[in-house]
């Protein structure tokens, strides 16, 4: 306080008698301030010269220690000085600076400026050498005093003075004298180290090493560097450690994929994702690899299974490949969107264009639909509910990649209709769960028919009840001896078609048939009922008079078989021609139905010859024996199944044409005039979600529409819409 007062007095005492506004006044004070200021400079310079001299005897760590020690003392002193010279700071220095003299600083700053010009500039290069040696020691695994470096850094930062505003910190000194050399030495160090390491170790080990090194350097920033260095330091390390060896790393990628080294793949991903475009080449490799794996898995399966490829095995094989790599993408590649895309591309390839699909790409959706049928159909080993839902989700996973979603739809509809008609569905819940999954994936239109089918089933059940009630009211119970169930289904929503054979309904059933027919017509006049005899079935009770089996057998038969068997109530033997006359069935169905009865030995084929040969005779087997009391004779005809698959494929072709034509008409109706190329593109875009249309097919549809005068060619490559 005393010194402060002295300075105050020094600065004010000499002030001449006040003449306000006279320039000499300020000049007088100025001179006095300047004198004091210059003396201070002199003193500081002398002091620093001594320090500089003393510093000469230290090197390396000793120099660092010395530097820190003196720096701390000096800066503390500088702060005191600043307080003491506060008056000078506030008046003389302020005025000088206001007048634009930038080389005059407040006392604290002055101390730092002098430190820098007298001492620091001469010592910094030696000091940095010492610091860098220390850092290298640490990198080599020795332990060092982190705080020493931290203090040096702090000093460098504080020396960064803003010439214009002493309160602002500028990092210029730190950047130039510390960061620059530090980064350069880091680069050199790792360049050398990585080169040697790679030469002697495996790529996998190198990746581990690089990972550790990167972590260490990031830690170093926290330990003693200025935060602003982090970016450039990391970038330098990434360049030297990753970028410079990126090709080497990438060359290892295939190897790691093949040996499924997930940890190492993850490491590689993390490393390469740090540099620009580091992952780019890997995505292509990954896609190719997944595609090959998928194709190989299916080829193996196809070779083993041959013709009888099990839909479940097929779906499982696809899923296994998908799961493996989906997991890899998630675990090792951090669900990177581009890798997800590569996975999707690869899956789409091996799911739609594998060996099984070599003849037609519709094989995949067909098998997938068959697998869902197997899951949803009642069977001995029905899956648990939760299990079933998981499996249905698996189907949806593959379904997502299927190109020909329309084919799946066709087969699915067909098989669903069979499950519903024959009552073989596991559960309504599972069915509707699957439909809502499909709806979610493909939209309302895709499943509307399926939903209509369920509606029809419900409506039909109500109708059934009404019919029963009506009959019970009007008829004597003795007239209602036949148990009768019926499904009335909308022609447009069900993939069911009548077959091309005539058929005489057995007399026993005619009454029921007529009753229902008139009941239905009275409810809905004008609607036409088409009876699908090939889908109807019944049970016959067979009592054999001289059998030990008192209960008799119950035969589950098709209506055709029923028509064949019922006449045997009146006679023991019928010839083929007689049966033909009675049933009016064509050869295909009569022979098919008969063969099963003969095979099950319900009927016996007399003499030699094949079933269906002219003149063959069929006798009721009075000694029929079977372990079961209920005997199922209603097995589907082989030829029927195969034919069904064929017709399904055929209807798909036709549906596709319709789909393309209506898309083209829709587009043209909206756009009126369109270039050919654009029309083709838009058509593909509209249809893609169902199947991938081929350009020649689209062209054929355009040809057709021009011919039918929906469209008109207006010049070489444009069409216009004709209303």
């Amino acid at each position: 306080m005393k010194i402060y007062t002295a300075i105050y007095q020094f600065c004010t005492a000499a002030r001449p008698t006040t003449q306000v506004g006279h320039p000499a006044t300020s000049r007088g004070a100025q001179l006095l301030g300047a004198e004091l200021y210059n003396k201070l400079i002199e003193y500081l310079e002398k002091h620093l010269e001594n320090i500089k001299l003393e510093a000469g005897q230290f090197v390396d760590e000793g120099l660092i220690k010395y530097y820190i020690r003196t720096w701390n003392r000096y800066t503390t002193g500088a702060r005191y000085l600043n307080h003491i010279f506060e008056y000078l700071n506030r008046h003389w220095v302020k005025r000088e600076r206001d007048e634009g003299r930038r080389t005059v600083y407040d006392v604290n700053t002055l101390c730092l400026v002098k430190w820098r010009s007298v001492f620091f500039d001469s010592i910094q290069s030696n000091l940095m050498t010492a610091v860098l040696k220390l850092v290298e020691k640490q990198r080599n695994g020795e332990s060092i005093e982190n705080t020493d470096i931290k203090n040096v850094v702090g000093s460098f930062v504080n020396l960064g003075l803003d010439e214009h505003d002493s309160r602002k910190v500028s990092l210029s000194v730190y950047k130039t004298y510390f960061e620059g050399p530090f980064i350069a030495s880091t680069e050199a160090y790792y360049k050398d180290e990585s080169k040697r390491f790679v030469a002697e170790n495996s790529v996998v080990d190198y990746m581990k090493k690089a990972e550790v090194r990167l972590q260490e350097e990031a830690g170093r920033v926290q330990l003693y560097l200025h935060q602003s260095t982090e970016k450039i330091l990391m970038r330098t390390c990434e360049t030297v450690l990753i970028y410079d060896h990126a090709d080497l790393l990438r060359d290892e990628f295939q190897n790691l994929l093949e040996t499924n080294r997930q940890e190492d793949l993850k490491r590689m991903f993390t490393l390469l994702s740090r540099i620009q475009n580091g992952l780019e080449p890997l995505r292509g490799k990954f896609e190719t690899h997944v595609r090959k794996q998928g194709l190989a898995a299916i080829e193996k399966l196809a070779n083993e299974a041959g013709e009888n490829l099990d839909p479940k095995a097929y779906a499982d094989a696809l899923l296994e490949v998908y799961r493996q790599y989906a997991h890899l993408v998630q675990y090792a590649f951090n669900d990177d969107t581009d890798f997800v895309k590569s996975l999707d591309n690869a899956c789409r390839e091996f799911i739609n264009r594998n060996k099984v699909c070599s003849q037609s790409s519709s094989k995949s959706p067909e098998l997938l639909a068959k697998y869902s049928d197997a899951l949803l159909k009642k069977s001995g080993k029905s899956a648990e509910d939760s299990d079933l839902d998981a499996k249905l989700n698996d189907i949806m996973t593959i379904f997502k990649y299927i190109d020909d979603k329309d084919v799946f739809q066709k087969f699915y509809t067909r098989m669903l209709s069979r499950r519903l008609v024959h009552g073989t569905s596991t559960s309504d819940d599972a069915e509707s769960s699957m439909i809502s999954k499909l709806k979610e994936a493909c939209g309302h239109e895709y499943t509307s028919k399926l939903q209509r089918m369920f509606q029809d089933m419900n409506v039909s059940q109500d109708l059934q009840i009404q019919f029963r009630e009506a009959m019970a009211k009007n008829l004597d119970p003795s007239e209602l001896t036949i148990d009768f169930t019926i499904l009335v289904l909308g022609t447009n929503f069900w993939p069911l078609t009548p077959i091309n054979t005539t058929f005489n309904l057995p007399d026993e059933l005619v009454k029921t048939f007529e009753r229902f027919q008139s009941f239905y017509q009275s409810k809905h006049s004008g609607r036409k009922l088409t009876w699908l005899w090939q889908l109807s079935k019944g049970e016959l009770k067979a009592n054999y008079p001289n059998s030990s089996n008192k209960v008799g057998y119950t035969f589950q038969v098709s209506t055709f078989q029923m028509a064949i068997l019922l006449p045997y109530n009146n006679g023991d033997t019928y010839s083929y021609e007689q049966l033909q006359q009675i049933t009016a069935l064509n050869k295909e169905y009569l022979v098919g139905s008969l063969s099963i009865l003969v095979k099950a030995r319900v009927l016996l084929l007399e003499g030699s010859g094949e079933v269906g040969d002219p003149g063959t005779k069929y006798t009721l087997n009075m000694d029929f024996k079977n372990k079961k009391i209920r005997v199922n004779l209603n097995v589907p005809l082989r030829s029927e199944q195969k034919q069904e698959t064929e017709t399904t494929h055929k209807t798909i072709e036709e549906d596709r044409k319709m789909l393309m034509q209506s898309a083209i008409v829709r587009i043209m109706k909206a756009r009126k005039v369109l270039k050919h190329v654009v029309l083709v593109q838009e058509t593909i875009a509209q249809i893609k979600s169902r199947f991938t249309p081929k350009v020649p097919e689209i062209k054929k549809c355009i040809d057709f529409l021009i011919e039918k005068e929906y469209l008109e060619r207006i010049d070489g490559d444009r069409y216009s819409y004709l209303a």
Partner: protein
Amino acid sequence: MSSLTSAQRNAVNQFVAATGATSRSAATYLRSNAWNLERAVDDYYNSGVAAPPKKESKALVELFEKYKDPEEPSTIGIDGTINYIQDLGVALEDPVVLALAYKLDAPTMGQFPKQRFIKGWQSMNADTIPKMKKSIESLSADLENDPAFFKEVYKFTFGFVRPQGQRVLPLDSAVEYWNLLLEDKFPNEDVFSKWITFVTEEHRKAVPKDTWNMLLDFVVNVLGSEDGLESYDAEGAWPSIFDEFVAYLRR
């Protein structure tokens, strides 16, 4: 046109025969007159679109009378056509006959309705057989030298030779007229005969108008181009028959 009933179609034909208008405008006038033929014709002449043929050249009328169909005096029929063409000194299978039919706007083979006949020749400033012969000569030259004119005649031919009431041209008549018109437009005889083999043995379908029209483009712009077949772009707007033909050629 396609949506017309047969009665309406009939009315259109009568309208055309009476006025020499195109069938398109015939339909327009008939439709706006509720298909009343008389009123439609009145309307047509009153509209001023077609000045009624007031100053019919007497010479032309007389010439027409000479060849007209005795049973249907408003037109020159088959026999009349044959005689007329012979009198002009032209062979029936000369392409110029098609050019003439185009110029006289003949609706179909062996028919020259009176109005169109007179109007056509008036526009060519010919009312005597010798003058007509001169015109025929210049038509022949145009066919040879003026690609645009040839294209018009070629396109006209489809409708001209197509059987009435049909959308497509039977393959054999298509081949016949290709022989007549297009053979020397193909770069060489070999390609032409390949085309004919292709359509008759591989494709074997009647020829729709679009195929007919585009064939000329195909021959001129693809086969006749510098790169020939190489310049064919299957992604382009070609009807698919050309995709198949190109594949056939490359086979």
